């Protein structure tokens, strides 16, 4: 018990107390400096009434495709491939290379990708080099491509994490299972779907949970690469909370949106936890 105390103290001061204050602020009309007025649920009503706020939530769900589904799928494929030559030097090299994006600060990743995706960036240079010059555009400044482009940055960052987690999960699968399957005449695909995938249930659960939270609560990548533009097409709730609190100075509405976002994340993640728990 005594060992838990320091951690519990930090947790309650820096996490529980912050959450409690946020909930408290969300019932007030407050600019952060002068006296606050109690307004009941008005701030929550505003969150649901404003199209712009609702639109940011839709964008966050779209990001799940890029932050979650793509990295988990690719991570599975990469891990299954690397597992085949797990002990070789090559496996270590590919693990390191694929995990590298995870250790780069998100801000640096955002800046690097906004260069790559700019009008004269590497992406457009490559397209021109292979004769696809007609496709080039300012990827982060185009209404149709800005959100997917932000998504690609997220996918690139999160792919390595998923791959590593899944690879770790694969190493604990009993090799005799694969041997038995091969004797029964299973090909690599059959092996993957009948043995690898079911055994990784928990790891996939962890990957999906972590990445879905990253999508719904995204801020850094969007802030660095587009700041929500063009025309709110990449606005996400995290960014909206920041604008509300620090530019519009509506701490109450910002807190209400933060509480809604937290509940939303829990509503998405908790059922997923149940689904992937071992039976």
């Amino acid at each position, binding site marked *: 018990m005594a060992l838990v105390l320091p951690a519990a103290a930090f947790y309650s001061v820096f996490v529980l107390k912050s959450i409690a204050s946020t909930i408290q602020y969300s019932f007030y009309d407050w600019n952060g400096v002068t006296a606050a007025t109690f307004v009941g649920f008005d701030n929550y009503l505003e969150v649901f009434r404003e199209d712009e706020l609702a639109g940011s939530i839709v964008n966050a769900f779209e990001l799940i495709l890029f932050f979650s589904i793509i990295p988990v799928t690719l991570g599975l494929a990469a891990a299954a491939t690397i597992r085949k030559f797990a002990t070789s030097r090559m496996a270590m090299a590919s693990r390191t290379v694929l995990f590298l994006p995870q250790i780069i600060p998100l801000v640096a990743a955002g800046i690097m990708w906004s260069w790559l995706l700019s*009008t004269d960036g590497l992406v457009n240079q490559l397209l021109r080099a292979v004769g696809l010059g007609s496709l080039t555009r300012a990827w982060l400044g*185009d*209404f149709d491509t800005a959100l997917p482009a932000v998504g690609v940055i997220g996918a690139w960052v999160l792919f390595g994490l998923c791959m590593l987690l899944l690879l770790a999960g694969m190493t604990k699968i009993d090799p005799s299972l694969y041997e038995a399957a091969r004797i029964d005449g299973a090909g690599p695909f059959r092996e993957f779907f009948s043995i690898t995938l079911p055994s990784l249930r928990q790891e996939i659960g962890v990957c999906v949970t972590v990445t879905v939270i990253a999508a719904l609560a995204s801020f850094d990548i969007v802030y660095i690469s587009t700041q929500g533009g063009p025309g709110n097409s990449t606005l996400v709730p995290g960014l909206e909370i920041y604008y509300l609190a620090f530019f519009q100075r509506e701490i109450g509405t910002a807190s209400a949106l933060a509480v809604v976002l937290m509940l939303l994340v829990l509503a998405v993640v908790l059922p997923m936890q149940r689904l992937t728990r071992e039976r």
Partner: protein
Amino acid sequence: MTLEAYIETGFPLPKALMDEFTAQYPNVTFNVREDQFAVITQNAPRVLADDPPDLMRLPQVSELAEDGLLLNLDGYAEAFGWDQWPATQLEQMRVDDEGRRGSGPLYAMGLNSSMTGVFYNKQQAAQIGMTEAPATLEEFDSYLQAAKDAGLVPIAQFNGGATGGLAFPLQNLMTSYGEATPINDWIFQKDGATIDTDTNLQAAQHLEKWIDAGYFAEDINSMDYSMMMSRFIGGQSTFIFDGDWESGNLDTQMAGNVGFFLMPSATEGGPQAAMSAPLTYGISASAANPDCAAFFLDWAATNEEARTIGVEIGGSRPMGPADAFMPEVDPDTVTAQTLAAGATIGEDNGAMDFIANATGSIYAKSWTPNLQKMVAGELAAEDLLPAVQADYESEIG
């Protein structure tokens, strides 16, 4: 005595003034803290309340004044004679008891007063046959078309992220068609003021015409301010809409190859207007040395050395009486041109604040997304002003 100062990173003027002040008054030194303007904007209320600086670079002042965070400078204005200066100089920094700007007590002072308009690349202007500044909007249009026809990029104007730089040409077009006063009334939140007027609509439609004609660089929706500057300096844009805070920089980087003109009126000989704003510095309501800080602000506007620094390093006209000392400036520089433009604006009574400053978030949350939509063809010119007016009303509501 040590003055606590909180200033904006990237602009050498305040530091240069402070060094000169300490040289003249060795008993006063400055303890300087610097941040980006965006950071100052976010933290202003908390810094003024919790860690009160004697001198601070201020964002839009109305809410800070209304919250009682800024010192009322009326007493100093009377004592130092600031109330004898042209009234428009201080108008933007007056806030009444309901948070409306334009009248009421004075809550800030400028270190100088900036001025905006159109900068152009002289070589490229000569190439398209522009030998002097256009006298009418129609003439300006023809030069934009000529630049386009010559394979140049007519205007690379930043409009990406949360900073919709098309607000510069839009507001300039508003004054080509209409007057500055109603725009100022809207910015100052006067009762019943609207941005959705006939002449402003003509301006929005004219801007749309420029967009459709391809006068702006293709990627302006992903271009930030520093990209605009590097393209203009690198000769990748014939014109840009910007302010004289860049004059000194451009005189260094494009020496002899850069010119400036005020946005022409739609009718020949019509009055000209420009966004012009003081570089605002305020004193915290709970500052330790308010008298000395106020003396510094007065000194910056009236001392000859200080005014010379203001022009040579700041690139803009210092505050102060209309007939105050002005240093000699090389007439071939763009600094000289922007200073001369300041005089024209004074005669035409055309100084106005920036439409981005009407409320705390009207720029990031309304002008910017709506202008970006207009560039992408997702919003028609007719719908721009009603959309912004609706956001404006919901915020000041």
